[in-house]
């Protein structure tokens, strides 16, 4: 098989920023499919992707006949612009609120001149997934499919309380892992010699404690007690808990009405439980949830290991051929 072709391109956003992208084309001896995959960043990493995942995705699909376009949105990678100093939670919040919609408009305008006859499928990992969802749903260009990996469904922000974010299922998994080592002399030595990840252990323990407190509190609290007869003086301002993102709900509803959707998560990723317990439980029927959701066993949030990446790519390919390209 001959080499696939890669081309560096630049294009402009409607507000005049110059962005850089890479177009991967199938090798000459592989028939080109009429579907184009589009993706930008991966979490907070530029177009190559965390653990080189997006480069690998581009090569996986281009070698199977699908052109792939990945680009750096404004302020990321080698594109124009600057991301001002942020608390990461606020940077995530801005991404989840459509920070890069304009970058997608620029990419789509550019691609329209070259791939008008292709079906467009947007993809991405973590922040890149929500950017692709918002970029696709909030633009005029028709998107045939959304293949979103580890897509956040909540809205981040330093103004939110994260203390209860970690799902108990993940905390149990982690604590079981540590529990399995309590009689391991090496592990004990690491623990007493300050080499263990105490921060992680405390985080998991705290999750379990807080959830238990919540449970007990809910049981003890009677309905009458929830409405005090006399107004109390306001307590110190409490941060609201991290909750579902209204913009995600709206965009995913619109995308599901117009296009095909696929959500992929690893089962070692707390985002999976946020998707199922917060989003799907409230907004999707069980049948719809099962239709759109695929889980890669053992994978973590960023699909770090090559084997997990390959499984996710295979799921996308199967979905493309069985769903997107059939309609």
């Amino acid at each position: 098989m001959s080499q696939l072709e890669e081309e560096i391109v630049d294009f402009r956003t409607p507000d005049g920023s110059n962005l850089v992208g890479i177009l991967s084309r199938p090798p000459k001896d592989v028939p080109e499919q009429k579907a184009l995959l589009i993706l930008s960043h991966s979490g907070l990493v530029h177009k190559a992707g965390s653990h080189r995942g997006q480069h690998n995705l581009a090569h996986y699909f281009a070698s199977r006949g699908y052109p792939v376009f990945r680009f750096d949105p404004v302020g990321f990678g080698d594109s124009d612009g600057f991301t001002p100093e942020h608390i990461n939670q606020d940077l995530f919040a801005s991404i989840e609120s459509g920070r890069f919609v304009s970058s997608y408009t620029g990419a789509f305008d550019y691609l329209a001149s070259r791939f008008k006859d292709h079906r467009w499928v947007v993809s991405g990992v973590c922040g890149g997934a929500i950017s692709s969802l918002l970029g696709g749903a909030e633009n005029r260009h028709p998107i045939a499919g959304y293949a979103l990996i580890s897509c956040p469904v909540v809205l981040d922000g330093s103004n939110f309380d994260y203390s209860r974010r970690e799902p108990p299922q993940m905390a149990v998994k982690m604590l079981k892992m540590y529990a399995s080592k309590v009689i391991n002399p090496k592990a004990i030595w690491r623990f007493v010699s300050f080499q263990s990840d105490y921060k992680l252990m405390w985080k998991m323990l705290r999750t379990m404690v807080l959830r238990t407190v919540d449970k007990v509190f809910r049981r003890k609290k009677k309905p009458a007690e929830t409405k005090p007869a006399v107004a109390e003086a306001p307590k110190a301002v409490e941060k609201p808990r991290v909750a579902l993102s209204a913009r995600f709900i709206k965009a995913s509803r619109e995308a599901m009405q117009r296009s095909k959707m696929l959500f992929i998560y690893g089962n070692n990723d707390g985002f999976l439980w946020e998707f199922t317990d917060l989003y799907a439980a409230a907004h999707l029927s069980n049948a719809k949830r099962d239709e759109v959701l695929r889980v890669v066993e053992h994978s973590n949030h960023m699909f770090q290991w090559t084997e997990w990446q390959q499984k996710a790519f295979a799921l996308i390919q199967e979905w493309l051929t069985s769903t997107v390209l059939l309609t």
Partner: protein
Amino acid sequence: MSDGVAQLAVGGTAESARRVTQQVQFLTRPDGGRLYTALTLPAGAEPSAVVLFCPPTFDEHSRAYPIMREYARGLAARGIGTLRFDYFATGDSAGTSDQFTMSSGVGDVAFLLSWLATRFPGVRIVPMAVRMGARLLLDAIVGQAGALAGRLTAPILWDPVVDVRSYVFNELRATLSGALMVYQGQVATREEIVKETLATGFCDRRGYKLNQVDGYPITAELLREVGLATETPAPWSYAEPVNVVITVRGASAAERPRTQLAALLPKMEFRSNEDIPYWNQQPLYRQTRDKLFAIADECVTRCLS
């Protein structure tokens, strides 16, 4: 775009955007391997000097990316050009990840030094590197001779990794930590990963290859090159002057790396920078590192004076 080169005016502010331009292109090695490169230049003027900025490896590469970019843009605004790049088989360059080797990385650096020398004749070249890029850079410089060698200043190394044997072996610990979640227990030691990979090319446990760091394959060839195939590593040192900047959380933490590096870099000029490490943090938490950039600027000025 012209001739496969993306030309951009870049910068955080309108003023700096006017002063800086960037050319993103693939450069092809003599053996045909294509390297993703970004050349940042002062707009409308030839640079007074050029920097070859060698990135870290594995996922440190993507974490350090925004900081390297911002520093390159800052240099260009002051008249100094910078070439950044991805090693073959890493980042956006061609090649599958298992094709990355030390010798390939060293070859990339040597090739790009020559490219810069041809592209900017008569201009001094400042070799600069971050983390494991430092070792690749120093090994490439050792092989330089003649006119090109005469144009190179002393290298500037940010948080250098020069003992690559220990580095790769230590990084395997993170792989095993990740594996704990998969297997809910320990299935291999680092020594077993090294031994099996050297013998068979990989270390497989229930369908997953553990000979990897951050998802990047650690091949038998790479293990041999970093010295993990033998009980004792081959001696290595760099006898020429180098500038080293080490980022530490507190001033007292600088002594240990200083001592370790001094053994391998005897003519080292050492500076420490109190800050949060940038190569193992999520990127963009803070793109600009004023103190780090100021120290690096001081090194560049000294090198060019």
